[in-house]
């Protein structure tokens, strides 16, 4: 369907069909020809043998034994009419089975054993030429010189040029006819495919003429049934693009909204600070401002991470590398150790000494694990325990973070099971420590790596959040 100079222009459909069909047709034709050759040869033989039989009868009539001897009127005039129809040469021999009489082509090969009264036909070679011989034996009555049981043998042979020529003619005609049929089949195929593809060309024109922002569905009606699934696929692709476009728009809206609130708060704090004269109170305002700035900074980096994760899906896999999991977990723990300590939360790492490596983009994986730990610390009660673990099996690597917090809502779990993306929270009841972007980012990163985020509430209370990373990460999956 692509008309532009693609690196490898596809083979035309009619040629693909022809490459499948024509050799098989050719094979079938040759096979049937071989079979009909045998039949044709038998038919030709029986027709030509009949004229040999006629010649034998005619010679038999020219044999006289009246004188007591055996005389044959020379059969050459007979042969002249016979040879007018048969192109080759005609040979004859009249003999008695006691060998006393032998008239005609003396060097004809000896006939096979003959039965009285029956004409036998056989192939032979005479002076390096193939001949067809008809041989006939009958009793001589009366026998010559009083002999007993004397038989007369008449042999007529013709060279096989004419029947070979006949066969050649028939066979070459058959071959020509078959070849013509084959060419016609190829031609019809090309024409048929051309005609059959006309709706596809119309479809292409419809697509080419579309405005770039026209993301309406195409109507598959009127297209060949084989092409309809393709149209539906294109429709689904267009739909995904539309949804993605909407998500992007919402992301920008959300990000703007998220940044608008702290900026408004900061503006209010600045206004308030300008009215204060008490340095102590001003200091308090500045501290509050600093906290807001910290949170805004955190929010910005989260938004950046989300954007990065989404963009990463569009990058090539060049950023992927072998990531050492032990080192990665160390880094994440070190980053969050201060905030955990502040709430007396115990962080445990349950990983084998050699946790192995995964094929991933290090920054993105770090961000994902870091987000899960951040969420766990936020959810965990003070003095709680958070366990991070790594498990390897043949197919995947699982990085899990277990906390003792309240878990997540059933609604959220259901959305995750259904494969839905987390949306950014549209409304925020309070400006809490969490930006609420964490799980959306993790999910986005997992999609990029071909992995999966799994959340499960634990029986006594708490959440188990795990990242399932495939072992042989073939490449970056389109987001």
């Amino acid at each position, binding site marked *: 369907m692509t008309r532009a100079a693609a690196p490898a222009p596809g083979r035309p459909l009619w040629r693909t069909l022809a490459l499948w069909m024509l050799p098989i047709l050719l094979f079938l034709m040759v096979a049937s020809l071989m079979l009909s050759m045998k039949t044709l040869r038998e038919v030709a033989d029986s027709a030509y043998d009949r004229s040999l039989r006629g010649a034998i009868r005619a010679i038999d009539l020219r044999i006289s034994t009246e004188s*007591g001897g055996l005389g044959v009127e020379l059969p050459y005039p007979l042969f002249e009419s016979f040879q007018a129809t048969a192109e080759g040469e005609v040979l004859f021999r009249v003999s008695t089975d006691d060998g006393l009489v032998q008239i005609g082509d003396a060097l004809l090969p000896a006939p096979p054993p003959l039965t009285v009264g029956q004409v036998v036909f056989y192939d032979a070679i005479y002076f390096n030429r193939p001949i067809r011989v008809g041989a006939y034996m009958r009793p001589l009555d009366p026998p010559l*010189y009083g002999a007993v049981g004397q038989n007369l043998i008449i042999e007529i042979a013709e060279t096989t040029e004419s029947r070979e020529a006949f066969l050649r003619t028939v066979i070459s005609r058959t071959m020509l006819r078959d070849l013509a049929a084959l060419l016609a089949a190829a031609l019809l195929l090309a024409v048929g495919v051309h005609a059959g593809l006309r709706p596809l060309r119309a479809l292409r024109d419809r697509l080419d003429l579309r405005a770039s922002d026209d993301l309406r569905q195409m109507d598959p009606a009127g297209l060949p049934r084989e092409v309809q699934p393709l149209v539906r696929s294109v429709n689904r692709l267009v739909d995904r693009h539309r949804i993605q476009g909407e998500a992007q728009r919402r992301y920008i809206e959300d990000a703007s909204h998220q940044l608008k609130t702290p900026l408004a708060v900061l503006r209010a704090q600045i206004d308030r600070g300008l009215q204060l004269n008490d340095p102590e109170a001003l200091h308090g305002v500045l501290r509050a401002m600093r906290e807001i700035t910290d949170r805004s900074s955190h929010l910005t980096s989260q938004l950046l991470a989300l954007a990065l994760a989404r963009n990463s899906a569009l990058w090539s896999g060049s950023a992927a590398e072998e990531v050492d999991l032990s080192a990665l977990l160390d880094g994440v723990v070190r980053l969050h150790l201060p905030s955990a300590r502040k709430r007396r939360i115990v962080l445990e790492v349950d990983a084998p000494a050699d946790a192995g490596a995964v094929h991933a983009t290090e920054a993105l994986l770090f961000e994902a694990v870091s987000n899960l730990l951040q969420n766990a610390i936020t959810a965990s009660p003070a003095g709680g325990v958070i366990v991070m673990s790594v498990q390897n099996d043949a197919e995947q690597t699982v990085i899990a973070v277990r906390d003792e917090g309240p878990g997540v809502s059933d609604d959220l779990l259901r959305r995750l099971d259904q494969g839905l993306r987390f949306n950014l929270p549209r409304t925020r009841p309070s400006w809490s420590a969490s930006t609420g972007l964490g799980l959306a980012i993790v999910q986005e990163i997992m999609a990029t790596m071909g992995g999966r985020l799994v959340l499960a509430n634990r029986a006594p209370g708490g959440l188990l959040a795990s990242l399932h990373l495939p072992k042989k990460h073939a490449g970056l999956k389109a987001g």
Partner: protein
Amino acid sequence: MFRITKGRATALAAPLFVLSATLASAAPDRPECIAPAQPGGGFDITCKLAQAALTDAAVLDAPLRVSYMPGGIGAVAYSTIVGQRTDEPGTIVAFSAGSLLNLAQGKFGAHDETDVRWVASIGTDYGAVVVPADSEWESLSAMMEGIKADAGSVILGAGGTIGSQDWMKAAMTARAAGIDHKSMRFVAFEGGGDCATALQGGHVDACMNDVGDSQAAIDGGAPLKLLAVFAPERLPGKLAEVPTAAEQGFDIEWPIVRGFYVGPEVSDADYQWWVEAFETAMAAPGYGALLESRSLLPLPMTGDELNSFVTEAVAKYRTLAAEFELVQQ
């Protein structure tokens, strides 16, 4: 019936004519000469010569009847005379050197040369190679070159099949020319007459015939020409222009004795009558002309002389046939 009556008559008559026994035998009632081939060949000429000579010499009152009994160049006639018509006093059968050659090879059935009574030889003929008058070949050597180039394309006609004297002439010439005689194509006819007919029809390219029957055909207007004669030297008269095979590099002679035999049970008296009849005829003044008109040379032999000639010839031919791996037993 007739034969029994005749036999008794001879037996009764014999004592009455005892004083003049040699002349006493009456001429046979219905004298017949069997030419054991189709008309027009050497046997035909032999019988016709006897017919003319015996009439000219007034030995026979009734003209000698000529009948034809083709089959194996004399084989059928020989077997008939030895097996069926053994005692017909009025029947003589023509033979030639070819008959003796076939006898030597056992081609006449289970008979040998002692099974009949040889009466007389009346002349000798020679083998000849004859082609159509418009043939591309002007000499025997040109013809042998043609066969050498493509043996399968040249069809040789012969009065008689493989092993016959006509075939033998061709085989000997081929041997002299360095050609394998087994590579040559042969069509057999019942005598030289049929071969000459086929030659004129273009069905064969050359006939290995005899001077006598070939010249007879040419004299009769057939468009044929002789390429060679298998004679020691050129023949007299109108045949003087035809070169011998030896002149063309093929040192082969093939004389053809022509004569007659009678059945084994023909009485001595009747046999003797025929011997004397031929002696009389061949001594007649006009006989030389008769021979010459048939392109034959004189070779008068009768009785015992002929018997020993036949015995020697058969022995000689037996040796020759062995050379060409022809003897069948």
